[in-house]
């Protein structure tokens, strides 16, 4: 009798841990998705692979860090400050750094020089941050840092991750609503489908590019705010999320926002639950393997469409 009872409690313990890892994967995955949304939007509209994406996330994290550290405010109240700031950061980066190159390469479908320019921005931003802030790992102690939601069965969910999950879905819905119903949103969609045809409707391409880039950076800024309560901030932090974001964008379909969020969740769950059954160094391999497999079966990704890329 006691033998089977012991087996049962062991099995229950095991199930609880697996469930805990599943939830962690879901939460963390949604945040990965959030970091990828900006990248996929920029690619969908501008047809540009923004290699500075990780650096932009880093900038967003530093912005959130300083907002919170200098004023002691609630980390989520930093969002209405950081997000608009990041919007303009992206808007002006597009207008003054990338657009001049765009204009020179007007007839090229996917301008290579622009990719080089974004790579340059990546190096400059990362090294500027290193120079200004130093290599120090900064951690901010906010009102939600380290706090947990306790679920029955000894399951702990980190509060900032839960809030990140909620914010991911709210911003996803907001973006969807924006793109579907507003004039600017429709113009953005039209430009991403056929930019010349959109020009023939009277859409100012460059204004659309700036706005889309700004929205992409703003969402990435939001991701930064979401990460700062539980993640350390340092100049090369962007690289860690960058690689994941690229995989998620391709996995979910270039230009698809729901694809990015779903792709992120898939990656998060594989990473978290997979680690329970194999060394965590192997979960990276599994993710890359899945990524390659998907490219063979459906090269345009989960929600990608054949039309434009």
């Amino acid at each position: 009798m006691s033998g089977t009872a012991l087996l049962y409690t062991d099995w229950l313990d095991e199930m609880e841990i697996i469930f805990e890892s599943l939830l962690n994967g879901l939460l963390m995955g949604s945040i990965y998705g959030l970091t990828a949304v900006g990248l996929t939007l920029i690619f969908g509209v501008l047809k540009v692979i923004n290699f500075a994406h990780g650096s932009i996330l880093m900038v967003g994290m530093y912005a959130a860090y300083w907002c919170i550290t200098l004023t002691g405010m609630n980390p989520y109240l930093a969002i209405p400050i950081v997000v608009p700031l990041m919007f303009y950061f992206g808007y002006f980066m597009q207008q003054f750094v990338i657009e001049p190159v765009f204009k020179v390469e007007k007839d090229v479908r996917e301008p290579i020089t622009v990719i080089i320019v974004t790579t340059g921005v990546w190096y400059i931003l990362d090294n500027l941050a290193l120079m200004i802030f130093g290599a120090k790992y900064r951690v901010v102690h906010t009102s939600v840092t380290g706090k947990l939601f306790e679920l029955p069965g000894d399951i702990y969910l980190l509060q900032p991750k839960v809030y990140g999950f909620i914010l991911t879905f709210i911003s996803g819905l907001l973006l969807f609503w924006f793109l579907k119903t507003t004039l600017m949103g429709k113009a953005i969609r039209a430009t991403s489908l056929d930019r010349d045809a959109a020009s023939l409707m009277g859409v100012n391409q460059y204004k659309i590019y700036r706005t889309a880039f700004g929205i992409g950076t703003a969402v990435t800024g939001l991701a930064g705010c979401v990460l700062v309560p539980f993640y350390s901030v340092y100049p090369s932090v962007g690289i860690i999320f960058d690689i994941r974001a690229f995989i998620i964008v391709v996995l979910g379909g270039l230009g698809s926002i729901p694809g990015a969020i779903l792709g992120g969740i898939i990656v998060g769950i594989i990473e978290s639950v997979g680690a329970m059954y194999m060394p965590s160094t192997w979960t990276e391999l599994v993710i890359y393997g899945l990524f390659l497999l998907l490219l063979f079966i459906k090269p345009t990704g989960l929600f990608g469409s054949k039309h434009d890329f």
Partner: protein
Amino acid sequence: MSLLKIDRLNTGYGDIQVLFDLSIEVHQGEVLSIIGANGVGKTTLLKTLSGLMPASSGTVYFKDQEIQGLPPEKIVGLGIIQIPEGRRLFSLMSVLENLEMGAYTPKARARKDERLKEVYQIFPRLEERKNQLAGTLSGGEQQMVAIGRGLMAGPEMLMLDEPSMGLSPVLREETFRVVKKIAETGVTIMLIEQDVKHSLSISDRAYVMERGEVVMEGTGAELLVNPHIRKAYLGI
């Protein structure tokens, strides 16, 4: 009265020149055809007029205003609307959304609802399919959306690039009938076509282009009976 005057237009792609001292006049209220074989530069001409590509030299006057070099959105704002080759619909947007995009400029947006009614009157099928994704429509229906989208902008001059391409003979006749009808409402039409017979028969005037230049000019009727035209373009 001259609505559009193109004076010695030269342009091309990089080192390849496509248009050579091209001069064309469009009179207000007329249907003008530009005919010529593939590759003579007809689409390049439209791209330049719409501001999608720059002219290397030459002037374009629209109602006595110089418009070469203006960005595409300004050209559209003046009422010069192009319905591009191959329709170029926004395939993942609905029929209604495509039509709405046609009325993107603030001026056009103000009259959006009444124009939409007019478009549905000309093309009742579009109202039936208004929520369907444009990419899932048949070729003929897509053509209707393309023309309807152009009308939503309230054009003064409508430039159509090969509207009958890829359509069945029945639909082709229908297309030219619709173009004629639009012209009757006062819109000036510039028609680029490879279907020489039909386009000449509805045109007031026409130009013939070969290798980036104008080689012949005349009324629609004149050109229809011209022996060179009949041999080269009508296969008679």
